[in-house]
């Protein structure tokens, strides 16, 4: 359940953000006529891209860019990373070759899909001042974008649902995020290749996909051959699937697909004990241990940029040289920046320890009070992309060991 409010008047009856978000063909959770799992080969995957394109979606998918797996417009299956995996550990990420032709044989790169839904820079309004000093405000256009995200990992879908709760299930929802978010078609690929930094089972977000996708694929790799077991999670997903795949998955296919996820889960050893974690963090607000972390933390904010749920933004005004036009831009902000906590002329959180405490306590503790769930999906990006390899799961353990 995401929301309780809805501002759409047509279609006429609309009670939750879920229904709004999925109301235009994306409804999931009601009976579908033919939702049997199906099998796609590589050509079938190509047909999926074509079918989505024909339906008006700009299809985005993972691609190798600048030495990492990033997301970009996908024209064909040949754009996908072929036979590539990622090796991740605290402060380290590199791509490596696989001994097969898997297209989705890696965990997650530094870019999360939030770059597309909640972009780093968004214009909010333009303001004009006349010669008499009169002000006129023009809000920025928020045209709905019709995009398909192909190849997202289950933790990334979970992250989008967390941002939905923050930015849409609000008394005054974010119109820009709403426009970007409304028509997204989600093609999740169940995770068969978690990184050493992953801990999604602790957060309940993977390696198998939770609800909210239009299509979920599981990649079955046999050397150079790849096949995909596909299941629909929405009416639209089912419609699309029926047009591209006519062969139902066999019992053996489904068993193999399930094994991909169960084997992946077995390989994930990193854990975060979430039992009572909010209470633990609240009890440790005064702990000296934050100073110990701060000896390592550079307060660079990389973790907040890489995190797929971090949503904080700063509002910046710029003026042109005539002095008659002003623009307001919303840009990603980080709780590690000093300006973030300005209270009057000075920052409230001037010490590094207070800023690390804010980030960790918000992500894993106060988020639960604010949004009834954790702010973490266990994707491990904050560990990988921390220049000094600070590992939040280890820091929570250390805090737990403090008295």
């Amino acid at each position, binding site marked *: 359940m995401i929301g309780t409010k809805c*501002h*759409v008047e047509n279609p006429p009856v609309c009670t939750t953000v879920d229904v*709004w978000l999925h109301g235009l063909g994306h409804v999931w959770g009601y009976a579908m006529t033919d939702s049997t799992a199906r099998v796609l080969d590589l050509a079938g995957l190509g047909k999926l891209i074509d079918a989505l394109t024909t339906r008006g979606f700009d299809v985005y998918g993972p691609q190798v860019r600048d030495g990492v797996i990033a997301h970009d417009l996908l024209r064909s299956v040949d754009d996908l990373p072929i036979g590539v995996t990622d090796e991740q550990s605290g402060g380290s990420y590199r791509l490596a070759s696989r001994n097969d032709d898997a297209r989705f044989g890696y965990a997650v790169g530094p870019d999360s899909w939030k770059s597309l839904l909640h972009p780093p820079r968004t214009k*909010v*309004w333009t*303001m004009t*001042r006349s010669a008499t*000093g*009169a*002000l*006129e*405000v*023009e*809000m*920025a*256009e*928020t*045209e709905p974008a019709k995009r398909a995200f192909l190849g997202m990992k289950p933790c990334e879908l979970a992250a989008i649902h967390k941002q939905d709760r*923050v930015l*849409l299930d*609000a*008394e*005054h*929802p*974010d*119109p820009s995020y*709403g*426009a970007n978010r409304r028509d997204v078609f989600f093609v999740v690929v169940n995770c068969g290749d978690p990184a050493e930094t992953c801990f999604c089972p602790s957060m309940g977000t993977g390696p198998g996909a939770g609800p909210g996708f239009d299509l979920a694929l599981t990649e079955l790799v046999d050397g150079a051959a790849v096949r995909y077991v596909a299941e629909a999670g929405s009416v639209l997903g089912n419609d699309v699937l029926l047009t591209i795949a006519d062969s139902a998955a066999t019992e053996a296919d489904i068993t193999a697909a399930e094994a991909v996820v169960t084997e992946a889960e077995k390989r994930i050893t990193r854990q975060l004990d979430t039992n009572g974690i909010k209470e633990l963090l*609240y009890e440790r*607000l*005064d702990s000296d241990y934050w100073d110990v972390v701060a000896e390592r933390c550079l307060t660079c904010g990389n973790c907040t940029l890489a995190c797929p749920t971090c*949503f*904080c*933004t*700063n*509002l910046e*005004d*710029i*003026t042109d040289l005539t002095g008659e036009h*002003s623009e307001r831009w*919303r840009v990603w*902000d980080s*709780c590690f920046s000093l300006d*973030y*906590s*300005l*209270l*009057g*002329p000075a920052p*409230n*959180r*001037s*010490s590094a320890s*207070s800023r690390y*405490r*804010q980030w960790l306590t*918000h992500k894993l*503790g*106060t988020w639960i*009070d604010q949004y009834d769930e954790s702010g973490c999906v266990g994707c491990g990006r904050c560990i990988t992309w921390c220049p000094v390899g600070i590992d939040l799961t280890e820091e929570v353990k250390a805090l737990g060991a403090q008295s």
Partner: protein
Amino acid sequence: MTTTSTTPLALSPLLVPRPYEVIDKIDETPGITTLLVTPVDGALPDFAPAQVSMLGAFGVGEAAISISSTTRATKHHAYTIRRAGPITNALVDTPVGGQITVRGPFGNAWPIAQSDTRHHLVVAGGLGIAPLRAALDELVNRIERFDRLALVYGAKTPDDLVFTEDLADWKMQGLELDLTVDVGNDEWSGGVGLVPDRLAPSSNASSDGVTLDWADTTAFVCGPDVMMHFTALRLIDLGVRPERIWLTLERNMQCGNGLCGHCQLGPVLVCRDGPVMSYADIGMFHRVKEL
């Protein structure tokens, strides 16, 4: 022109800055000015005491400022602003007849109607009096509800006290007024010292300062964090129940809609959940330095 027609979610008016005209300016003290503003088009929105707006200066930015007029003023809102940086300077420097933008009002209100104790205390530190002005006006207007209504108001010097005409007016209507300053002058006859030190035990009725039946008192407190912290601790020490101590919180408010994350204080988003919170709810977070 707004583009709500293409926006899938209705655009909240609170996200859209609205031009307001400055109709008057009152210099309260050197450095503190009250702007009286009214919308260029359309009606003045209602507000509740303690609510905050985002005031925008063209090309400079927005600052969160409490409404300092009373709810009886229906032609304008007042914002009492201290010069603290480029934005507040630009706001204060807007000439009469010039325009600023306003988004809001945001946030919740002082629980004036819910106050069911015989005694009621208001504590203001510095410009913390601004968001209390409408509350004081409403409290004084219903003063018969209380056996005693008291205000402790502290400032740096006698010259830093604002709303002095209101103070005299409220006092005439029965408000017990206790003023205190850090540094007095030759004419100063009020207290000298910190606000919490003006609050005295019930057993010591002859002492300087304010003595109420603390077990039957509700308190509204607004001022700098450190002042609110020690005032709340003092009140609890005297016997006021934590759920009857109400603070109005200040954090780096930007969007005003709970979307930008800046105004967090522990689990609270000040613009969404506050600014008024009971000490019972926020004390364990408010007491923590740099939280």
